[in-house]
């Protein structure tokens, strides 16, 4: 099976090359079938790998890449439980989103190129998770960033979309620099960037080793950029400029979880660096609450989901930071299901309303888009963490671990899930309940075609039952997923020697508290938006201070512009006009000017008077003789 595994990423690559080169020469439906077909093949192969994995890890060597002296990197894939789970998520959810896109993008003039980009994205994402070394992971890492850039700016006529794309790329690049430096430090410390060399060697290091801490912090900078954490999160909400399937695939289900994958993959390193672990957990939980608080007041259906993604990613980092690696991966999986579903559902709404994204102009769509509504409802339950939907199990496992690690993290986590439940139900109520607030005559809301609703239904089923692979022992389950991942995380877990003190009773109690809090905030949302029929204020209306702050995203973008973008542009002008033109070139030109000035002086000697020349000559000779004889 493993030799075929190497082919998994190459089917999407082939799809990209064929569709990309043929482009408009290919009929639309051929391109669509080709793109989806490639993904389906990859999915089947991934399934095969997943079935055969059973704990061990295999490397598949393909070709050497860069080698200089002792330094070398190669194209080698690693198959182990962790990568196989990600393979399943990427190819599985990716395939569903491809199918959905067939309907969503059907009328777009750049239909074919869209599928080419999507296939390219999947290729790079697969490289990212299959890589057996950090350097090869970086290939996928940057590659998905490129695809994200291409797809956010897919409708490139619009300047703000292009700006969003550029912002995403640059913010990612900031993180990538950290990642790259981390890789270089790994090379210097371990002489390689291959996992199979680094991880065994790392076990010989002391916990809290300075070098390991530096490496893990640098790698985490990369994760901050890719997975949109504070302070580099602002690109993700803007990235919603891309077509909705892109938001679902790249900016919710797969690419943004690359940071979690990377930290989980480096579990052993992080386990040796308690400081880094604390930083990861802290940034994660703060982001979770911060982003959720912004999501409370947003009115764009996709923006709410975007902030929700940022917040959920924060939870995953919280999980990683408190040592719950498998719980985080579990949450990546469930999140992939329900968040992809939410985005696709939102896409279906947008599709049905001919491009409308503002929830103030929606309402009452329950009847008109029944399938979308039902699936959206399932996803909302899942993300809010209502048992037995999938999000409940994964999120609560993270929170339980947070509780044992640091009570404050747990409290913040619970506040975050309270907000999550509120903004999700606010979104649900405002979109699907009440009466339609848009222009009835202009827009005829309609349910999406089958090719779009079937993926929704499949994802809804997954969001419902997906959690059962990780039912904790305390609830009588067997936590299959964590056993499945055990071979990968065992060394890290051993290093950390977690205080596994929390008895199952308190774990159940914690769940009870969370669920109660969540239900309370759902009731609040119900009260506000169903009973009181409240609708968010129109643009420009005065809001109470806190709401205003949240609505304007705490003015973070404005602060970044004022503190970084503007000063850099000013600096650029200063360097060019003053330093370069005046100072450096001034000195260069000065040498020319000095020559001219000297020649100006010397020119008076050249009087043109032959008499004078003769006299000067005689005096000169006399002087020479005089000094010679002295």
């Amino acid at each position: 099976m493993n030799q075929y595994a190497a082919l998994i990423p190459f089917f999407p690559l082939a799809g990209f090359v064929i569709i990309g080169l043929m482009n408009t020469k290919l009929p639309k439906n051929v391109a669509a079938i080709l793109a989806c077909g490639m993904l389906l093949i990859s999915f089947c192969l991934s399934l095969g790998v997943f079935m055969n994995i059973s704990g061990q890890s295999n490397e598949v060597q393909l070709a050497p890449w860069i080698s200089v002296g002792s330094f070398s990197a190669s194209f080698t894939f690693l198959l182990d439980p962790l990568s196989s789970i990600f393979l399943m998520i990427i190819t599985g959810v990716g395939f569903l989103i491809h199918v959905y896109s067939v309907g969503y993008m059907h009328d777009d003039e750049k239909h074919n190129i869209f599928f080419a980009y999507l296939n390219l994205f999947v290729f790079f994402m697969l490289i990212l998770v299959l890589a057996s070394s950090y350097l090869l992971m970086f290939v996928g890492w940057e590659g998905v960033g490129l695809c994200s850039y291409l797809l956010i700016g897919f409708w490139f006529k619009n300047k703000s979309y292009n700006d969003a794309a550029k912002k995403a790329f640059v913010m990612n690049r900031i993180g990538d620099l950290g990642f790259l430096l981390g890789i270089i430090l790994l090379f210097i410390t371990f002489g390689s960037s291959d996992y199979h060399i680094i991880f065994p060697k790392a076990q010989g290091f002391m916990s809290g080793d300075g070098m390991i801490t530096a490496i893990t912090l640098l790698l985490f900078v990369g994760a901050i950029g890719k997975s949109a954490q504070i302070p580099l999160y602002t690109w993700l909400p803007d990235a919603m400029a891309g077509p909705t399937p892109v938001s679902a695939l790249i900016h919710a289900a797969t690419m943004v979880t690359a940071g979690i994958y990377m930290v989980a993959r480096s579990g052993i390193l992080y386990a040796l660096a308690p400081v880094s672990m604390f930083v990861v957990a802290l940034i994660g939980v703060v982001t979770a609450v911060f982003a959720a608080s912004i999501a409370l007041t947003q009115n764009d259906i996709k923006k709410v989901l975007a902030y929700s993604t940022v917040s959920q990613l924060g939870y995953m980092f919280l999980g990683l930071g408190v040592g719950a690696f498998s719980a985080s991966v579990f949450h990546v999986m469930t999140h992939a299901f329900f968040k992809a579903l939410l985005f696709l559902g939102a896409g279906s709404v947008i599709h049905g309303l001919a491009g409308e994204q503002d929830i103030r102009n929606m309402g009452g769509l329950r009847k008109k888009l029944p399938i979308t509504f039902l699936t959206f409802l399932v996803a909302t339950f899942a993300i809010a963490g209502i048992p037995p939907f999938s999000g409940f199990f994964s999120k609560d496992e993270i929170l339980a671990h947070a509780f044992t690690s640091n009570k404050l993290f747990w409290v913040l986590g619970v506040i975050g899930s309270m907000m999550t439940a509120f903004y999700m139900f606010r979104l649900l109520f405002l979109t699907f309940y009440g009466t339609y607030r848009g222009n009835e005559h202009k827009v005829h809301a309609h349910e999406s075609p089958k090719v779009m609703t079937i993926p929704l239904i499949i994802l809804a089923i997954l969001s419902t039952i997906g959690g059962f692979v990780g039912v904790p022992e305390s609830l009588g389950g067997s936590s299959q997923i964590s056993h499945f991942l055990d071979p990968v995380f065992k060394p890290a877990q051993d290093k950390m020697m977690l205080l596994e003190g929390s008895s199952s009773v308190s774990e159940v109690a914690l769940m009870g508290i969370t669920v109660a809090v969540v239900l309370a905030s759902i009731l609040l949302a119900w009260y506000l938006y169903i009973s009181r029929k409240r609708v968010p204020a129109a643009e420009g209306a005065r809001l109470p201070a806190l709401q205003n702050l949240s609505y304007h995203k705490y003015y973070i973008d404005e602060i970044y512009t004022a503190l970084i973008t503007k000063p850099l542009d000013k600096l650029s002008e200063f360097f060019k006009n003053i330093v370069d033109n005046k100072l450096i070139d001034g000195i260069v030109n000065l040498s020319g000017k000095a020559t001219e000035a000297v020649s100006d002086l010397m020119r008076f000697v050249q009087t043109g008077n032959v008499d004078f020349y003769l006299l000067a000559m005689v005096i000169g000779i006399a002087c020479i003789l005089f000094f010679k004889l002295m």
Partner: protein
Amino acid sequence: METIALLLILFAFAVMGLFVPIRYGNRFAFISSLIVFAYSLYLFLTFPISAEYQYVADYSWVQSLGIHFKVGIDGISILLVMLTTFLTPLIIFSVRKSEPRPRAFYSLILFMEMALIGVFVSMDGFLFYIFWEIALIPIYFICLLWGGKDRVKITLKFFIYTIAGSLFMLVALIYLYLHTPAQHSFDISALYAAGKSLDPHAQSILFWFFFLAFGIKMPVFPLHTWQPDTYTDAPTQGTMMLSGIMLKMGIYGLIRWMIPMLPQGLAQNAECMLWLAVAGIIYAGIIAFTQKDMKRLFAYSSIAHVGLIAAGIFAFNGQGLQGGIIQMLSHGINVVGLFFIIDIIQSRTGTRNIPSLGGIRLKAPYLATVFAIIMLGAIALPLTDGFPGEFLLISGVFKFNNIAGAVAGFTIIIGAVYMLRTYQNSMLGETSVETDNFTDLTMTEKTVLIPIVIMVILIGVWPNLFLKVSEPAIMKLLSGI
């Protein structure tokens, strides 16, 4: 013998080019440069992977002064020779047919190609200096006769600037020559021995003398001020020759003539030089942020890229040097592509001013795609040609000095910012008045750009093809110190 054949063939073609009928001028030059490329490709493919010089030819030239006509090719030279012979046909083919005095133009380019190859294969200090200066002559006339409106002043500045630097090198070479044993010699190994035997203080001074020559040619901050003006004002082919190949002379000089000769000089000055280079990366990158003229923008970006190469070379370890070599190739390929794209845009719209462009991707998807790929190479995306080089360079610098490595790494952010800005403002968005009637690439333009795109990806995916060739020679250099 093969090396001399290469030089002689080119010289013959350059002279013949003056006499072919005007109609065939372009075709003749193109075909002759292709022949040279084919020949050098043959040399490359049959090149044995070894640290020693191959194809050495040694004739006594000025016997009384110990000057030899000694040329040879090793793993470093062959790559640069390949770069030169690969780019020259593309540069020649990229000429628009409306150029006045075409035969002289083509002959100068061929002549310059010969001089550049001469620089890369010389094994005698005096011969190296001769070729070094000969290379300046054709580019001087190319800029002077076919340049933009300020050409006289700018070309003069460029000429005096570079020749002033070269004179310092001449002084240093003669000083070393006088320190060779009794029967003085300019032979490279004799000069190596002479340089190493000097006391550290003298080495340090000579180091600065060489640095002035090479640093100006590259150019390294703060010796760069001739460059943006010259790049902007030179005809496109001149800019391509200057940035694509000629600046590699400076880097090659560092690797071959300066550092191995003066190891103590390096030991004393490496830190200082490296910081200069790193400062240049950031400085030029930040200036590139707000440039409106595309050519000037890429000129500054070139300073930034070269700064990184210089930093990696001053770090003087395996990664730094190998990264420098591979980055020389990819930088040459990228800038030639980028400057040609500017030429295409300018010939269609009459402007290089970025704010007045936009929406070209709507009209010319091929151009936009090619531009995107080359741009990705320039911002060092993995699997394009920029990545192996930048990664090796940054890690080389990082090994030498952690902080400098981290600062140098900022180039990947800064580069992304100005490149994406340029791309967005020229290719994306709505069309402007200037770009409304933009037509896509012609067959000729594709012929030039497609080989470049292929190389961008080839170097990115298979850098070992080139790294392996230069590795033994680099290791020998490293062990020589």
